[in-house]
């Protein structure tokens, strides 16, 4: 089967594989109710409503649907954390996609908003969630319009709102706009933002959303893509779902591959059976590194992920494998960098992102990410000092203490240090800034040293106390 770039779903490439969530992307009017109903839309909802809510929950759990937002936590298990007898419960859809390297949720919202709505309805039905808030990133104007239109259509057609399909299942889905802050993608920050506050994460414990969430009530926070999988699962069943992908990571995922490949794009890929090599070099995927260049490094899962290198090309696109190799799949944002890339500059760019997006609530991230960025900028500007490299690592250690997750490297004799990192911070944003630093210094220390021109040092009064060293 051939693969093709779908022009009206900018960036999406139909790679000829199974389509559990992108099945309608080929249609120009894929976002309309008419097309949705004509292509099996709301069948999954009807299947769910024909079951008892608890059965729907069991089915989702059985399917082992892993969260698609970055943490990869099984949705069915998360759903089970709501305490008995505490009402009301809410569904908050995390559509605040801001991770550098991917925009799969944007595509799902623009191209198939009804599928998302259907997924929300299924979740609400299963768990007794009495209101759903669809939090869409503020900068995604078209996505908001498509969802607004779809909601208006769905309400009018009786799929959303009071007495859905003439049953006693009633739920309102409210479109809520974000306003531009990466940190709000963290689930407790999302809830804070939805309450009208600054989007600063809450401490977990005790504020696990399923226990204490929106307005202090049990709240399920699910990613857009996670919910978009529900219609297919309810229509075809958990067993059918598990026939795709791998044992521990069934189904498909949307991966965005950007950077120095010949055909960057968003692909729906079967988990576990595809490797990075397949993805980068496959004819149906990215068709190799551009312009005769060689692969230098790649980020397997978004800005927070430790970097991979050539020796990791045969790792399968599956959370467990990637984790064991010392990184994370995150939200499926893969960034490929070839040999023309300045590693120090790339590192700085990511650290600067985290510094700009830090919410400011806790000291290590607020101060530490800014400090890291300033040191890197100074190095790039030609005023680096020899002590800066170890200083960077130690600052990182004070944000994320102990051995930082690193990818295995056979020739360097490194064993992988698995994800996630420890944190002195409230949330993982601060530790995320350490990933590019550790990855690039470990591998490309010579590039840093080449940029350092000064001879003086900043005294480091205490040697970093870390187990295993950085």
């Amino acid at each position, binding site marked *: 089967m051939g693969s093709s770039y779908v*022009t009206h779903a900018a960036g999406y490439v139909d790679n000829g594989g199974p389509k559990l969530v992108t099945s309608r992307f080929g249609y120009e009017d894929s976002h309309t109710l008419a097309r949705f109903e004509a292509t099996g839309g709301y069948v999954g909802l009807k299947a769910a409503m024909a079951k008892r809510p608890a059965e729907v929950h069991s089915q989702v759990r059985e399917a082992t649907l892993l969260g698609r937002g970055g943490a990869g936590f099984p949705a069915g298990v998360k759903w089970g954390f709501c305490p008995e007898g505490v009402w009301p419960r809410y569904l908050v859809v995390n559509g605040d996609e801001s991770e550098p*390297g991917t925009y799969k949720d944007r595509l799902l919202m623009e191209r198939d908003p009804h599928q998302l709505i259907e997924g929300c309805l299924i979740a609400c039905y299963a768990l007794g969630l009495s209101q759903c808030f669809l939090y869409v990133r*503020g*900068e995604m104007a078209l996505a*908001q319009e498509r969802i607004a239109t779809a909601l208006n259509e769905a309400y009018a057609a009786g799929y959303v709102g*009071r007495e859905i399909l003439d049953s006693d299942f009633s739920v309102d889905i409210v479109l809520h706009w974000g306003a531009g802050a990466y940190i709000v993608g963290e689930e407790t920050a999302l809830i804070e933002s939805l309450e009208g506050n*600054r989007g600063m994460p809450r401490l977990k414990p005790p504020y696990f959303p399923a226990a204490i969430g929106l307005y202090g009530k049990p709240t399920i926070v699910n990613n857009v893509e996670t919910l978009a999988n529900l219609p297919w699962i309810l229509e075809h069943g958990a067993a059918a779902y598990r026939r795709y992908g791998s044992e521990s990571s069934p189904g498909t995922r949307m991966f965005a591959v950007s950077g120095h490949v010949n055909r*960057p794009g968003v692909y729906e890929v079967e988990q576990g059976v595809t490797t990075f090599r397949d993805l980068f070099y496959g004819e149906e995927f990215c068709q190799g590194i551009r312009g005769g260049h060689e692969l230098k490094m790649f980020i397997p899962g978004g800005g927070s992920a430790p970097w991979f290198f050539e020796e990791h090309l045969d790792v399968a696109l599956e959370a467990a494998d990637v984790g064991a190799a010392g990184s994370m799949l995150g939200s499926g944002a893969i960034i490929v*960098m070839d040999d023309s890339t300045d590693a120090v500059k790339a590192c700085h760019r990511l650290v600067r992102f985290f510094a700009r997006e830090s919410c400011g609530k806790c000291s290590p991230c607020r101060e530490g990410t800014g400090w890291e960025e300033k040191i890197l900028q100074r190095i790039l500007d030609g005023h680096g000092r020899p002590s800066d490299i170890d200083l960077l690592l130690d600052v990182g250690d004070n944000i994320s203490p102990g051995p930082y997750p690193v990818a295995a490297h056979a020739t360097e004799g490194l064993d992988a240090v698995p994800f996630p990192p420890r944190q002195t911070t409230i949330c993982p944003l601060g530790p995320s800034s350490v990933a590019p630093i550790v990855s690039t210094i470990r591998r490309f220390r010579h590039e840093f040293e080449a940029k350092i021109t000064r001879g003086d040092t900043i005294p480091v009064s205490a040697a970093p106390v870390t187990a295993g060293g950085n």
Partner: protein
Amino acid sequence: MTFFDTDNERLAHEVIDRYPRARSAAIPLLHLAQEQEGWVTPAAMVQIAELIGSTPAEVLGTASFYEMFKFHPVGRYVVNVCTNISCQLLGGEELLEHAETSLGVRAGGTSDDGLFTLEDVECVAACTEAPCFTVNYRYFHRATTGSFDEVVADIRAGRSPMQRGDAGDDGDLPEHGTLGRVRQHISDDRRAGVEAPENVTGAPLWLAADRNGEG
């Protein structure tokens, strides 16, 4: 204190009524205020505070956390050039430099004719179509210096540049502040109904009718 015009005030109440707590409407109302004026004025924040039962300091505290809210007048077209990693790898910084030259402003500034504000932003979510810029949050994929200039020329000439975006988005380019050209409306006869959380004591109807001990 009244900032919102009649229609927007009515809309503000409609929005507030969708939430179990009025405070949750803070961000939607800030967007509405920005849509009316082009930026978020102190008067807007004072009225929003009254409408949602908060104080102006809290509303400013919330608003100032987020990138999209502007606290001084900006151009009618806000041009955001992404320089995050995927775009940087494919020329995002060069695009920004070109934009500065082409528009005659440094990043962060507004052109003298009040038409354009240029910003250097973080990932706009179009990474495979790098380098990318947005104008009033409408995408322009796989940008080149040439395509950038064409978009600017269209805007100056009063033509819609949307087709050039290659983002499946068309129609007119809204001015800064307008997010969705379509709004959600929930009609009274279809609304399921919103309750303050403290007034809800039991499981919702369809679940209560079917409790089999499962949470």
